[in-house]
């Protein structure tokens, strides 16, 4: 590692320093709001720093890339962390959390996401993923008054540990087979002379995929999702469903791109996984009466669609996937943001009955939620539609027509549960208890997410141009 490497890592280093000092500050300063606001400031400034830092050639210590792709996701995850902190302010004040700890964990998780998305070395990948997962073990259980939260934390811990085991073992096998941990050599070395994967390579890939499957909850590794989401406080759930999954997808795209033609041996398997994930995500959400569980199934269905984009194995497919991820992250952040803005002292309106008639008493936030849900569902004129369109377009172009049909059918089914929420919000029966009126920071987040969803829905061109520029 030399000075140039350090310069490229500057924003990350700044973030770590900021997080650590806020952690220490938390020991002296009891003003939760101040610490959270400084956390927001630190993450925004880090995002800005990685935006304006001069471009660096090559990579950082052979572990992480410093290219446009890495930088794009670094900025994006830092912003995601900032938004998460913005919707956490009231939550952490009302629950009297140890703010320094909370902020530091969110920022460390963001760092893990950034490193994971820019990994070009299997160890870098492992480091990034573990940094992110470790932070989440604590974050998920941050509402210590809730049993569900503790249960969710334990579930995530156990399954996370299992996934880590799979990942480490998979990396070990890939190293055994190819003799390298550096991408793309590590995967190129897996090919035998006939173009197929060596047995060890296949096994290694299988274990890697299992780990990825756990992290982004692909069927059949999806069972933890609904329980964990339900128990997790919504600001953390927002971060978990967006950043934690998106970063794994971003890292996974890097793996897939470097794997070359050996990928063909896996694509049949992944085809089935993608189809099942989309179908289960759509069907599983139908009977849910808890909004957070419903969103968990929605996120499962979305990850299935993302996998379709990755399966295309074309630049069109990858850029569609990245666009889809960006849009999904924005809409999901906003959705959980609305839930967080209605919560009071850690009590969130999760049950759909609590949303009954809310649309008339809080028209602004419920309209925003309607719009974001429709974007998640993929209605035209929202960004979600362009995302789905781009993915299915890429899929049909690469000949995955039947997968596109399955995707269309499952997004039709998913529409039913998104609309169920909308109907409930605008049904006349009114509930007595008053949810929180929300606060400016939360409204700011909602405004930003809504604007982004509409703008990207009507004018997706610039983002697509940016994505095709940064694609490795």
């Amino acid at each position, binding site marked *: 590692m030399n000075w140039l490497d350090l310069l490229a890592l500057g924003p990350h280093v700044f973030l770590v320093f900021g997080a650590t000092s806020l952690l220490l500050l938390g020991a002296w300063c009891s003003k939760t709001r101040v610490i959270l606001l400084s956390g927001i400031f630190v993450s925004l400034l880090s995002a800005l720093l990685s935006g304006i830092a001069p471009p660096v050639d090559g990579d950082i210590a052979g572990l992480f890339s410093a290219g446009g792709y890495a930088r794009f996701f670094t900025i994006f995850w830092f912003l995601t962390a900032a938004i998460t902190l913005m919707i956490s302010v009231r939550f952490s004040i009302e629950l009297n959390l140890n703010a320094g700890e909370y902020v530091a964990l969110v920022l460390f998780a963001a760092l893990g996401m950034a490193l994971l998305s820019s990994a070009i070395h299997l160890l870098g990948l492992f480091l990034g993923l573990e940094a992110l997962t470790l932070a989440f073990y604590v974050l998920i259980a941050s509402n210590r008054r809730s049993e569900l939260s503790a249960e969710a934390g334990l579930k995530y811990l156990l399954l996370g540990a299992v996934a880590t085991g799979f990942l480490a073992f998979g990396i070990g096998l890939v190293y055994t087979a190819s003799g390298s941990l550096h991408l793309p050599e590590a995967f190129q070395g897996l090919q035998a002379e006939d173009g197929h994967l060596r047995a060890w390579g296949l096994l290694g890939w299988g274990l890697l995929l299992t780990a990825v499957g756990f992290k982004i909850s692909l069927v059949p590794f999806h069972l933890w999702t609904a329980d964990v989401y339900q128990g997790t406080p919504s600001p953390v759930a927002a971060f978990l469903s967006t950043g934690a999954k998106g970063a794994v997808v971003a890292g996974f795209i890097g793996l897939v791109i470097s794997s070359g033609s050996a990928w063909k041996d896996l694509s049949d398997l992944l085809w089935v996984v993608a189809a099942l994930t989309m179908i289960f995500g759509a069907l599983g959400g139908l009977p849910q009466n808890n909004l957070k569980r419903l969103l968990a199934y929605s996120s499962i269905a979305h990850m299935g669609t993302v996998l379709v984009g990755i399966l295309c194995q074309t630049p069109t497919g990858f850029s569609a996937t990245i666009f889809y991820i960006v849009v999904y992250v924005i809409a999901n952040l906003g959705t959980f943001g609305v839930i967080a803005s209605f919560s009071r002292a850690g009590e969130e309106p999760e049950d759909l009955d609590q949303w009954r008639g809310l649309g*008339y008493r809080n*028209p602004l936030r419920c309209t925003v939620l309607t719009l974001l849900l*429709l974007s998640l569902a993929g*209605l*035209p*004129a929202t960004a979600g*539609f*362009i995302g789905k*369109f*781009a993915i*299915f*377009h890429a899929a*049909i*172009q690469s000949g995955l*027509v039947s997968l*596109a*049909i399955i995707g*269309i*059918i499952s*997004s*039709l089914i998913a*529409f*039913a549960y998104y*609309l*169920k929420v909308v*109907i409930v919000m*605008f*049904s*006349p029966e009114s509930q007595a208890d008053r949810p929180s009126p929300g606060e400016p920071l939360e409204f700011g987040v909602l405004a930003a997410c809504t604007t982004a969803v509409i703008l990207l829905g009507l*004018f*997706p*061109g610039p983002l*697509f*141009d940016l994505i095709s520029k940064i694609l490795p």
Partner: protein
Amino acid sequence: MINTVDTLPAFPWLSLMVFLPLSGALLCLLHTRSERDCRWLGLTVAVATFGIAIWLFLSQQPNASGWFCVEDIEWIGRFSIRYNLAMDGIALVMVLLTTFLQIVSMLLAWPVRRHVGLFFALLLILESGLLGIFLAQDLILFYLFWEVALIPMFFLIGIWGHNRRHEAALKFFLYTLAGSLFMLLAIIGLYVIHGDQTGHYSFLISDLARTELTLRQEYLLFGGFLAAFAIKSPLVPFHTWLPDALSEAPAVGSLDLTGLLIKTGVYGLIRIAFPLFPNATSECLPIFGTFALVALFHAGWCAYHQDDIKRLLAYSSISHLGLVVLGLAAWTFTAWQGSLLLMVSHGITTGALLAMVAMIRQRIATRNLQKLSGLWAQAPCLSALFLLFALASLGLPGLANFSGEILVLIGTFQTRPIWAIMGIAGVVFAAAYMLRLIQRVLWGEPTQAEVADLSPREWLILIPLAILTVWLGIYPATFLKPLETPVLLALGGLP
């Protein structure tokens, strides 16, 4: 075809027409406090939009390929999606119908009490969506408007509907969405095939029509489009959502649903499915004809057995739409003109009947034929107009539906005499259920002590509808003339 237009109006009238209602809707949403303002705003915007449509009708001359005006700019360059609105005679007639019926809707929506701002905003969004559907020449733009028109109707049914509104709204939405998602697949599929073939990616209908397709591809893609259009139209056997949606929808919602929304299905067939897949179309025409006849009889039979007037009108609409599709399947100039004219007349007459059902329901609080009786004795003016529209709907010569029906039958007779003969038999059904409706509602002993006759607002709604009903019956040429060139062009490539 489109790009060769030389009479481009400098001012984007079409965009103005499409987006004026949408901006009105935003104003309504921002200004929900004053219900009175929202009502007047809605009405003003609807009248202004109708004014633009009339102005375009009077001032613009179609060019050689039948286009009145065209607007075309690039929208999403990456996928070569263009913002392309264009209006030919068929679109013009549909636009006139839409903007006119929206004024009627606004007036009919006057007594709505709950969430007035939202209600009028949704009506205006619906209008924007419908106008967009009729004008868009780019398939993605078309798809966008197609879905945008769905959302307000979903809320209109789901919020202001009757007892089973939630199920009805969801059924309506998912049913139509199922069709349109398959259309989306077909659109993307066609786009990819066209792009691979020519190296020039485009979603413009005129470009895509030049794609060389194998018959198998044509069938698959045609099927995708057909899924959307057949469900929306609704063709038998995809019609079951309409009676539910219609009977649960509020008065205005059902007027827009039958008067306008289901017309988009037939319009899609004419404008998109037929020209894009000529071979599959000509192969499928007999099937269309058969299903149209089935619809004509089946829906007529069902209509005869309904006690709820709205369900009766829903089945009658399905039956009429069957006749429209029969005319299209006959594939002659006369039949097509008749079909298009019948769409307009059906919108006017059934719209008027639905408006009157709402008026009756306000007075007697029922739509059940078993409970209604003897309205004539108490409200003669209301009853007289009801009689007029009902007779027009059953196809009495000199009134609206007749001219369309007779053209359809004559045109069909030219190519398929058997169909025409069966079609005439089907029209008799219309007489049966309409006469039953008239008899039950108007004649007999009055059930209520006192029923008020028409109020000024109701006169204002019904008089223009009555004038149009007679006009369409006596002098349909006004509406047939703009249809000539586009119909000839549409039929050009085929037998």
